[in-house]
């Protein structure tokens, strides 16, 4: 197994720069995600890796080999397309055998390998069907098998689950993860769905306007996003403007419209007087009853504005000072305070992230 390395890849379409100086490395055996909103260049980047687009600048390395000028059919990249792209004039088995025949493999060998791979994706019973006779989920499995049966160096998946309904999508997430682990193939997966990326990825890169905004393990990126935009794109978050007053025992103290707030970790370059935006995830914020025991710091009086029951979780919109904040918790853990009622909010200092304030519109909408 070999790593994949992109060095300063740039791809333009006319005046539009779809991929802008992207460098990254995918380690052997890894399931690596390219996550971003539509139009961010993530699919373009995948197609550059597959060889369907020639980059305008930069190099692509498969292991030590520079494949920048290698045509797609010599790259040994199995690809799963968004629309599956199963050949409608061939049976399922023929779809799988085609790539093996290309490699000059004998008929018997082709059949046994294709059949074995169909078993891996649990489609062994459908070998003689035509793709049009399969459901969306079944087509998805065949497309995956077709890409894997050639034992590619890299498996490329382009929004593979976006044509499936929500239930099937969740099922196929686990299935793809299982098959990827079983085959150990180094994989690059493109999606716009952050839940999918967070749930499945070994590592992921958040792509924005053709550039990599942030990269790392899902847990690290979600809990400690390096940029405000990444924080907003990776999940719901509360953003509050403030100004740094000073430092106190390693924590930064930020003045906000509802009072001073301690942030356990703030970049050292943000000194007293710096304008900042703080970000804190709704599930990190605690809603407390108006009376009773409470932590010593970062507790504020608040008014409940609205509550939204969502089954697993319940959200409360609360007003504290001049700002509105969303709190998310298990329904049983929220105090029974209705709209208009008084409550308190605890913002744990270690859940607060601090960013230098940017021009309006810099944060992703959530």
């Amino acid at each position, binding site marked *: 197994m070999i790593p994949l390395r992109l060095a300063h890849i740039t791809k333009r*379409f*006319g005046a539009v720069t779809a991929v802008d100086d992207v460098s990254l490395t995918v380690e052997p055996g890894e399931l690596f995600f390219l996550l971003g909103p539509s139009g961010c260049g993530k699919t373009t980047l995948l197609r550059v890796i*597959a*060889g*369907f687009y*020639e980059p305008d600048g930069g190099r692509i390395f498969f292991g030590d080999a520079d494949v920048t000028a290698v*045509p*797609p*059919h*010599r*790259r*040994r*990249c*199995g*690809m799963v*397309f*968004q*629309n599956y*792209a*199963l*050949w*409608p*004039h061939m049976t399922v088995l023929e779809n799988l055998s*085609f*790539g093996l025949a*290309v*490699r000059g493999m004998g008929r018997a060998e082709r059949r046994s390998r294709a059949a074995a791979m169909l078993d891996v994706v649990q489609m062994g019973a459908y070998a003689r069907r035509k793709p049009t006779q399969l459901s969306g989920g079944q087509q998805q499995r065949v497309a995956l098998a*077709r*890409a894997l049966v*050639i034992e590619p160096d890299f498996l*490329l998946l382009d929004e593979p689950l976006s044509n499936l309904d929500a239930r099937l999508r969740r099922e196929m997430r686990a299935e793809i993860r299982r098959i990827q682990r079983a085959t150990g193939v180094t994989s690059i997966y493109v999606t716009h769905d952050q839940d999918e990326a967070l749930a499945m990825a070994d590592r992921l890169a958040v792509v924005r306007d053709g550039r990599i905004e942030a990269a790392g393990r899902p847990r690290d990126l979600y809990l400690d996003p390096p940029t405000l935009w990444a924080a907003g794109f990776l999940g719901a978050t509360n953003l509050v403007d403030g100004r740094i007053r000073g430092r106190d025992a390693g924590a930064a103290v930020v003045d906000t419209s509802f009072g001073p707030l301690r942030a356990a970790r703030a970049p050292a370059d943000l000194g007293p007087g710096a304008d900042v935006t703080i970000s804190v995830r709704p599930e990190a914020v605690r809603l407390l009853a108006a009376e009773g025991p409470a932590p010593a710091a970062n507790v504020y009086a608040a008014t409940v504005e609205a509550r939204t029951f969502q089954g697993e979780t319940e959200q409360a919109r609360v007003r504290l000072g001049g700002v509105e904040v969303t709190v998310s918790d298990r329904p049983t853990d929220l105090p029974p305070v209705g709209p208009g009622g008084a409550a308190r909010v605890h913002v744990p200092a270690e859940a607060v992230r601090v960013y230098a304030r940017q021009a309006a519109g810099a944060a992703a909408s959530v």
Partner: protein
Amino acid sequence: MRPDLKTWLLVLVVAAFLGLFFFYPIGSVFESALWESTGPTLHYVGNVLSKSATRAGFASALVLASVATLAASLLALPLAYLQARTEFPGKRLFGAAILVPLILPPFVGAIGLKQVLGPYGALNAALAHLGVIGPAGAVDWFRAGPLAGVIILQALHLYPIIYLNVVAGLANVDPSLEDAARSVGAGPWRVLVRVTFPLILPSYFAGAIIVFIWAMTDLGTPLMFNYREPVAVQIFDRVSQPSNAEANALVVVLLAVVALLYLGARGLAGRQAFEMMAVATRPPAAGRLGRGAAAMAVLLFGAVTLVAVLPHAAVVLYSLKTEWHGTVLPSGLTLAHHQAALGLAPYEAAVPRSLRPLPSIWNSVVYSLGAVAVSLVLAVWTGYVLVRKRFAGRGVLDALVMLPLAVPGLVLAFGYLNCYADWGDRLVDAGVWSRNYLYPQTSPVALLVAAYAVRRLPLAVRAAVAGFQQTSRTLEEAALSVGAGPVRTLGRITVPLIAANLAAGALLVFAMSMLEVSDSLILAQDDAFNPVTRTIYRIYSNEYAVTGEAVASALGVWAMVFLAAALVAATALMGKRLGAIFRA
């Protein structure tokens, strides 16, 4: 996108073909008509236009085309409305039957129509039989001249083109626009006139202009009536003098008139083309007709179809007659004419041996297959480049390949006569060729194949483009990603997927080349190289052949059998999408 060498190479080949066999010949017509040794001149054009015969030729062609288009519109519009907006029993079947006349060559139908409407023809016999006219009161339906016969055949042949366009236009009208008119109080008639008709006007114009130009430049039908007035026939009569600047001037004037008409109609249609602001959210409602109205609809469809196939039915009967004179149906039947046509029985000694029918069918098959091969290869390349590549000049290429549709075959054939004989002579002089293969008198094969291929190229390209558009690019990318090279991908994935479209395109090119008239009559000048259409014309007009008309009919019947078989196969392969080619 960066220009890609392969793309440009493909474009270059297509452009070279069009340049050699389309633009260069047409250019040579212009050169011959508009240039003297001293420089540009309008002398010849002026000369041509000052002749009363020329003016009469244009007048007759315009009258012919106007009346034929009007008649075709009157036939097509009610049928199209019924088909698009109502439900009645047998609608699909009648909708298909109504298209049959489009594939029946009017050139052949002329023989039948003359038999039906002649002074001793079937219609007079039927009227006499019914006691409407006395035995001596035979009406000469062509008393006013052969013009009526030409118009009848053209209208009956061409109305399906308007019908197809209007049906498509009606299907695209968002029904909510009509509902809105009804909701503000407009009655059905007012909705039709004030809302529906203005919206489908562009579709109507698109069909009507094709019909108009077709009728105006048609050569075969007037020839079969020996009607020498229309400008197309006048040009044909000057074939013997191809280098004559005035003959070329006449071609240039014709082309200019066609171009003006075409642009005028496009402008008119364009000004009227209302973008549907809302995409039709549901198909237009098809109202179920009451019993009486449904019967009327069935009757109308049936009657139009019957009348339209009548001339050709008469041709079939005529080819089987022993005697058909003053009776409704032939008085006796024989297979002799068919045997003669197919070479199964010796043909009259009076007819030159070189005019034997069977070899000419074979000639046509060979030429048409050649045209299929050339146009299909070019169409696949062009279709591939047009659909799969993005490059500057793509729109230009698209327009260039479609251009031959707008240029009458007559013009192209004339250009070939102009410019290729010299090249052939030079190659003979240089000792490369022993014979001039680019001169109709010595060998018209290359010129005929090229003419057939160029003029049908737009149909083949549209068929290929449709195929590529229906085939997702990712199917090819998937093959590349599992390691198949571009050639294997083309052979195993792309071509099998668009095979039905290509086959349909090939059959259309084949069928339409088999029955091509103007290029065939002009470019084949030695009977040994005759395509079947020229043999039909020659046998038909040969005064020594007593049974010539019947044998020509038999040959026409076999040509139609070929055509019908090809089109049935094309329909089966391409299904409903076939209509799209005729609307291209």
